[in-house]
């Protein structure tokens, strides 16, 4: 757990609603299983991923594309495994 702003965490929960069903399903599981135990750095990484366009985000989650950003790959790996 982190001392991340609780309002920001609620905002991130809502922003996990996407335009593509496949992302909704993956992020819904992630929110239920992992989100509440993330560290501050992990939450920051997840917030950065949420800014990706849906089509790019899905390719990352599906493992078709890797991001040239090592600090994000820990969360990406969690999303791929979930």
């Amino acid at each position, binding site marked *: 757990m982190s001392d991340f702003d609780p*309002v920001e965490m*609620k*905002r991130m*929960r*809502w*922003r996990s*609603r*996407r*335009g*593509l*069903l*496949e*992302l*909704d*399903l*993956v992020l*819904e599981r992630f929110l239920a299983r992992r989100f509440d135990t993330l560290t501050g750095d992990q939450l920051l990484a997840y917030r950065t991923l949420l800014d990706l*366009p*849906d*089509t790019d985000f899905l390719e990352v989650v*599906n493992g078709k594309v890797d991001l040239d950003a090592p600090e994000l790959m820990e969360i990406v790996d969690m999303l791929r495994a979930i």
Partner: protein
Amino acid sequence: MGVPVRRFDAVIVGGGGAGLRAALQLSESGLKTAVLSKVFPTRSHTVAAQGGISASLGNVQEDHWEWHMYDTVKGSDWLGDQDAIEYMCRKAPEAVIELEHFGMPFDRLENGKIYQRPFGGHTQHNGKTPVQRACAAADRTGHAMLHTLYQRNVRANTQFFVEWMALDLIRDADGDVVGVTALEMETGEIYIFHAKAVLFATGGAGRIYSASTNAFINTGDGLGMAVRAGLPLEDMEFWQFHPTGVAGAGVLITEGVRGEGGILLNADGERFMERYAPNLKDLAPRDFVSRSMELEVLEGRGCGPHKDYVLLKLDHLGPDIINQRLPGIREIAIKFAGVDPIKDPIPVIPTCHYMMGGIPTNWRGEVVMPKGGDPESRVNGFYAAGECACASVHGANRLGTNSLLDLVVFGKSAGDHMIDYIRGEMPDWKPLPADAAGPSLARIARLDNQTGGEDVAEVRAAMQRTVQSRAGVFRNAANMALGVEEIAAVAERAKFTQIKDKSKVFNTARTEALELDNLIEIAVATLVAADGRKESRGAHAHDDFPHRDDENWMKHSLFFGEGRRMEYKPVHTRPLTVDYIPPKERTF
């Protein structure tokens, strides 16, 4: 305590393709325009449209908009309005070229023109030979359209209210629309948006089904608001399905799996398609396979704890074929069904994809309803476009690639007619009625004070199971009559939903409860409209009335929330400039 009021010339609810196209028209004309969206506009469900946008550009093969019109009328099974269909198909080339000029990155031919690919149902010479009519931006056409239109809107100074949820339509004593109430998610505060004209572009409502390809945001908010404001919904019995979505998830498994030898099994392990279609078996036409699957479930031979799906078996194909010829299927099955198809069958069910019905409009995007003997009297100040609207161009079934076209053509048309209305008829804002926010405040207060009520997710699941089992692809009189009773009982439960989190800021539980209020209106409309239509047409296949009945049923249905009653109105048989296309047997 007063509810704060914001005033705009035009307010648009929904930031997908239709809303953005309309907003662009209004903002560029100099009108003060607001777009309200639950999510960031480029994350609207338009992003999921991959196939393309059809237009008779004739860049690859000879093509004419009249041929496109014929295909669309035939696809609609003669329920589409031929004036609206003509308008859409005639405007299509101009709409696509306009998007190109806006900077949308279409795939191109070597000569620089837009490339066009083939797509099912699109033909030359009125059904004779397939034609390449679909313009696409790789497999990201919807995504590219959204980004292009969003950027143009930013340039045109459209004011975006992102993460705002519209709650209710405001109509005055004359029945005219003068605004909406909306919830700012970041604060939980309610505002009134006072407008000279309001456009709904809120998208589809596929989430009324338990099996749906629609994103979670597709809760038909505009339709719910329309019903609560006393407006009808048109042709709500017509929903488009795909036969094999992953049960419990909705992600599609391509039909190529059955082409490669995958077979469908019921709970007894029986290859049931041999019984329904002894020759074609699992490769029977899509509608037929869907209905057979659902009949197995309805007759108690479904699998799983709720006996609500069948199994798609692939393991006999062997890992090599699965990995080589069906790439991605194994990953989808593992990720969304939790099974490895090399070893175990995939749970599948016919899955809802698109809503043909919606808020009744004409080709100008004006919302219309029966009044004083006129079946299509204009509702002053109210417009709708895109999947939430029923113009009606898709009629009883939608042709692929016509949905993106619908968004831009009718988004623009609605925008143009809103400009005319605002400039020509509305020099000033009509006053807001007293207590304009009353119904919305009452709904929020009810939610906050509810005790002893039910969980939102439970009621939503009950609604989805009812709609799936009673108004899915297999329909008969007895089953739909049961469905009407069952959904009425679920609607009662929805009046007493309860949320644990009463906080104001980004309260997703509250948002979901408000979305359920909208979904439930649409679920009721779907069941009542389906139960009412005693024929088979397009996506509505009625087992007791297996044929199209043009004499008695070539008419649009209108569902009214009050009394849950149905009315009907004629199909428009007069195109704008060309001859009527008379009904024919629909063979392919």
